[in-house]
C-alpha cells in the first residue's frame, strides 16, 4: 500500500516539475489519498474465505466484527494518510505549507482518512457479499465518498490558507458528524449483511 502511495506521488513529482499552486497541490493530494483508500479497503473483506467467516460468525457478535474492522481500517488509513503526506511534502515541496495552519491540515487529513475507512468498510463488505469485488466496490463507493471528499478538500484548503479555527470548525464539525453517522449505520446494518 505504501508502495502504491510512494509510486503515485513519484509519478506526480515527475509529471509536474516545478511549483504547484495551492489548490492543485491540495486536489492532487486528495486524489492520491482517495485511490489509496479504495485500494487498501477493497481487500478488507475480499480476502476471507467462507470457512473463516463461519468461524467468526459462531465466535463473536457481527457488530464487534464490523466495529473492529472499521477501527482497524481507520487506523490503517490514518497511518497511510500521514505517511503519504510526508512523502508528498518531501517530493512535491512544502512551499504551500508555509502559511498553512499545520494542526488544522493534519486534523483534516486524519478525519478524512477515518471517513474514507468508515464508508468503504461497509461498502467493501457489500461488494464482497455480491461476489463481484473490485469493480462493484468502485461503483458503489465513489458516489458515497464524494460528499466526504468535497467537504474534506474544502476544509484542508482553508487550513492551507491559514484560516482561523472559528471559520473551519464548522467543517470539522461536519466531518466528525459524517464519520460518526457512517460508523453508526455500519454498526446497525452489518448484522443483516452477515446473516446467511
Amino acid at each position, binding site marked *: 500500500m505504501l508502495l502504491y502511495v510512494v509510486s503515485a506521488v513519484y509519478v506526480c513529482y515527475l509529471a509536474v516539475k516545478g511549483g504547484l499552486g495551492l489548490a492543485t497541490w491540495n486536489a492532487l493530494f486528495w486524489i492520491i489519498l482517495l485511490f489509496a483508500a479504495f485500494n487498501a479497503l477493497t481487500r478488507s473483506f475480499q480476502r476471507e474465505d467462507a470457512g473463516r467467516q463461519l468461524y467468526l460468525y459462531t465466535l463473536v457478535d457481527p457488530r464487534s466484527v464490523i466495529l473492529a474492522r472499521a477501527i482497524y481500517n481507520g487506523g490503517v488509513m490514518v497511518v497511510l494518510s500521514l505517511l503519504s503526506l510526508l512523502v508528498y511534502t518531501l517530493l512535491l515541496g512544502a512551499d504551500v505549507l508555509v502559511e498553512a495552519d499545520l494542526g488544522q491540515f493534519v486534523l483534516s487529513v486524519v478525519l478524512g482518512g477515518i471517513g474514507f475507512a468508515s464508508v468503504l468498510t461497509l461498502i467493501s463488505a457489500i461488494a464482497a457479499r455480491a461476489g463481484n469485488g473490485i469493480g462493484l466496490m468502485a461503483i458503489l463507493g465513489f458516489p458515497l465518498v464524494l460528499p466526504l471528499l468535497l467537504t474534506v478538500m474544502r476544509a484542508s484548503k482553508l487550513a492551507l490558507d491559514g484560516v482561523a479555527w472559528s471559520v473551519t470548525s464548522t467543517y470539522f464539525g461536519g466531518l466528525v458528524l*459524517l464519520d460518526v453517522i457512517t460508523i453508526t449505520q455500519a454498526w446497525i446494518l452489518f448484522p443483516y449483511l452477515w446473516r446467511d
Partner: protein
Amino acid sequence: MALLLWNEPTAAMRNWWKFLGIGLLLFASIAGLRIPLAPALVHVSPDRIAPGPVDVYVTGYNSSFGNDVKVRLVNEGDAVCASSVAVLDGTHLTARFDVPAGFKANLTDVEVDGLTYRGALFTEGLGSGIVEEQCPGVLDMQNSSAQEVGFAFPNRSILYESIRNLHFHVPMWFTMIVLMGISVFQSIKVLGSNSLDRDLAAEMAVRIGLVFCVLGLITGALWARATWGAFWTNDVKLNGAAVTGLIYVAYLVLRGSVQDAHKRARLAAIYNIFAFVLLVLFLFVVPRLNAIDSLHPGNGGNSGFSDLDLDDRLRVIFYPAVLGWILLGAWMYDLRVRAARLETTMDR
C-alpha cells in the same frame, strides 16, 4: 396513503388521489404556462447620460404605454420629467430629457408610469443635488393603475419568462425525494421481513425516482443556460444532483450483479439505507457548510423565491404543482409495482 399499506381499499376510496393529482397538474401546468408576466421595463438606451438634452429609448415588456404616459428620471430623490415623449407602440417609447448638472448618485433610475428600471443610466454623480421641478401629473404616478393587468407573475431581470420553470424544475426534486423516501421505507421493511415483494417495491420506487431525477436535471440545465449562461456549473446543489443520480444507478448495478433473489433483496436494502442517510446529509447539511458559493436562490446571499415581492402569485401555482407531481410520481410507482407483481406471478 393506501399504497404504503398494501391493503386493498374499497373501490370508492381507491382512485381519488389520482384524479386529484391529474387535476392539480393540469391546473398548475396551464396556469404556469399561460399566466403573463407583470409589465416591466427591460431595456434602456443609451446606458449613460451627461448634462444637456438627451433622447432615452425605453423598451418595456408586456407593458401598454399610452399617449398620456409619464416618464421621469429619478436620482436619489431628485426627479426630472421628460420634456417630450414619443410613444412608438405599447412597449417602446422615446423620451427627451434636459439633464441638469448636479445629480448626486452615480446611477439614475428610469420611471415610466408605475414601472421602474433601477440603475438604468450611469450618471456623473457627486453633485450637490438639483432643485426639483414638480412636473404635471407626477404625484399620481405612484399610485397609477394604468399598467395593472390583474394576476401576473413577477417580472425579474435575468429570470424574465424562465420564472415559470419554478413550477416544473423544483417539483421534480420534491417528487424524487419522496419516491426515494418510499424506497428506503420499503428497504427497512425488507430487512425486517425478508419480503421479496417489498424489495420489488423498493426497486420500482428507485426506478421512477430516477426518471424524476433526469427530468429535474434537464429542466435545471435549460434554466441554468437561460439565467447563468451554462448548462452545468460547479454548484453544491448540482453536485448533490449528480451524486444522487450516481448512487441510484449504482444501486441498480448492485441489483444486477447478484443472482440469488433473497441475497439481492438484503444487499440492495442495506446499500439503499446506507446511501440514503448519507445522501440526506449531503443534500441538506453539506450545502449549509459550503453555502457561500451556490448560485441557487436561497443560498450564498442570493434571495430565495420567498423574498420576491408579491411571491404569493407564484405560491398559488407552485404548491399545487408540487403536490400534483408527487401524486403523479406515486401513481407511476403504483403502476410499476403492480405490473412487476403480475410478471413475477406469471413467471411462477
